[in-house]
């Protein structure tokens, strides 16, 4: 008798897991978690962002365990996240207080504070660097010494790097974008209460920021390519470190000075300018600059830009356009959800298929009876 896939599962799984371990180790080389967190910044940042969990060490561990597969690494971290109690909410983080490493504006050449190109691949030529095949710790150290030595003169600038005024504040002063008052509504937490529609802005932003990088990017691309709005312009993109504080858990004190500093997170923030027509009195129409917002853990520039586009797109909310339909966008961009459901198709569906088979036979029988 042939092999029946639903029986004998215990042994099959054990053997499968051993095989998986073998695949990971068969070359006899072990990759250090530290090597991942220091040398795979891009992947670590992407995984932290999609996982909604800020920990470079755990992200690197997940990447190691997942053999570099981001969907699997995100999955591991999200599952780990479910075991953690939510003990505190941080105080509001103000991005104006960011210690900026890089900030650019596509709207103005001369922004207050100046443009800071920082570390970016934007103007690198994508030529494979074959020297990296030969790179050693020694050559890296030598390069570092030389670089830091040369930069010594600039150390002062390095230390001074930090707070910059926001480009949008400048536009607001000019009256070119609407002054939006501070909205202190307590944000909803999509990881603690379920999403209902119409979704609040805070819910939308949370789901966008933890969305799968590729999915967020593709949908935003659709928006600017033809399914939605006119060409947006990056008002400001900044990458840097934000300090995070929590109120003292022991007292009722919410005084800022009494708050605890719990660390820094690196984020990418984008404020996107989008031209919009506003109707004024007497049917007069005025062109105004509207804006969309994007913020992601780590240096995830494309994703943060895409997020700001989708944010604006969802605010428009014309349900007949998929990228403006909040249910369409928010339900489908999560990595764990989409990869989980797609991959569940590998699971046995024998019972459902048997039920379907029964129906197919029945309808066939009925149609032959009818004809006969």
């Amino acid at each position, binding site marked *: 008798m042939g092999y029946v896939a639903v029986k004998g599962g215990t042994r099959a799984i054990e053997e499968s897991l051993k095989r998986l371990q073998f695949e990971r180790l068969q070359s006899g080389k072990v990759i250090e978690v530290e090597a991942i967190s220091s040398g795979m910044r891009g992947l670590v940042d992407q995984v932290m962002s999609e996982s909604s969990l800020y920990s470079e060490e755990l992200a690197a561990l997940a990447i190691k365990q997942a053999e570099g597969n981001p969907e699997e690494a995100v999955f591991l971290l999200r599952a780990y996240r479910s075991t953690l109690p939510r003990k505190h909410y941080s105080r509001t983080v103000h991005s104006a207080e960011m210690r900026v490493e890089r900030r650019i504006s596509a709207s103005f050449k001369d922004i207050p504070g100046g443009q800071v190109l920082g570390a970016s691949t934007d103007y690198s030529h994508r030529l494979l660097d074959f020297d990296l095949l030969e790179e050693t710790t020694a050559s890296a150290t030598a390069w570092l010494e030389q670089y830091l030595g040369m930069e010594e003169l600039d150390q002062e600038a390095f230390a001074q790097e930090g707070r910059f005024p926001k480009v949008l504040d400048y536009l607001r002063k000019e009256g070119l974008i609407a002054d939006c008052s501070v909205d202190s509504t307590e944000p909803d937490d999509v990881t603690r209460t379920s999403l209902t529609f119409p979704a609040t802005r805070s819910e939308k932003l949370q789901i966008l920021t933890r969305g799968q990088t590729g999915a967020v990017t593709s949908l935003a691309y659709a928006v600017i390519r033809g399914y939605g709005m006119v060409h947006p312009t990056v008002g400001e993109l900044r990458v840097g470190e934000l300090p995070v504080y929590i109120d003292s858990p022991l007292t009722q004190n919410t005084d800022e000075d009494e708050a605890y500093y719990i660390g820094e997170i690196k984020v990418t923030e984008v404020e996107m300018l989008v031209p919009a027509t506003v*109707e004024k*009195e*007497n*049917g007069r129409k005025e062109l105004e600059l509207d804006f969309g917002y994007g913020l992601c853990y780590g240096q995830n520039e494309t994703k943060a830009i895409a997020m700001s586009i989708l944010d604006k797109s969802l605010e428009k909310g014309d349900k007949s356009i998929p990228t403006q339909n909040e249910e369409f966008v928010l339900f489908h961009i999560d990595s764990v959800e989409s990869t989980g459901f797609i991959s569940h198709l590998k699971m046995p569906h024998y019972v459902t298929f048997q039920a379907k088979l029964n129906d197919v036979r029945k309808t066939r029988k009925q149609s032959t009876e009818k004809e006969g």
Partner: protein
Amino acid sequence: MGQISSPIMSVRQLNKQFGKGCEQCSNSDNRKLERNYCRACGTVYSCQNLSFDLYPGEVLGIVGESGSGKSTLMRSLYFDQEVTTGEAYLQPYKEGAVNLFQESSQQQKYIRNHLMGKVYQNPVLGLRMGFSSIGNIAEKMIAAGNRNVAAMEARGSELLDQVHIPVYRMKEAPKKFSGGMQQRVQIAKALSNNPPILLLDEVTTGLDLSVQANVLDLIKHLQRELKISMLLVSHDLGVIRMLADRTMVMLDGRVVEQGLTDQILEDPQHAYTQQLVHSLL
């Protein structure tokens, strides 16, 4: 007609505006509008203080140019959109004692499913294009509580036959049909529960002349046979002349003239009506 009977439907002071309104336009007695539009705040007054009665077995025509508010009126009466203010009463519903616009959306669905039928100008609004034609007709019967497949299939076939669609095509989806056939499926659907009232919104607009004539014939025939009361909206006075017993003329959200259709055609009073009649060949 002649005999005095009580109306089957009464509408009182129906208002529908799009926009918040402002000092210049909020008061309906002295609002300053350009046509139905307030230049100060951009509010559009689509229906302004509309009141009328529909009598049993009568066809009441509503004529007016596009933007005059007639389709908005129809959408309001079928609860496709909420009115701003106003009242409507149906004799067959709680003996005409309750304002329909105040009822819960569940009750409004009941009224739609049991007491009214509507045929939209755009069949996409009235039909599920991918479902079978018989399924489309059955949907309304299902909504009214019918749970018998054979009965619904029989009734659906009868209706398709009445609207001259070959019964062997009943399992085909309306998207495979021509525009005229789609309108006839809509009519069959609207009639499925024998509603006392039928709302017809520009049902022949956009159809070829010969197809128009077919659909109009069908409506006329159904009206004579089934004695349904109809509200018939059209921008085409020819359609109104052919079907309506009485007619209301709408302009910029208001009723500017009403009376027996013949009378309005022979002796139009309002300048707009005169223009309309004179352009009728």
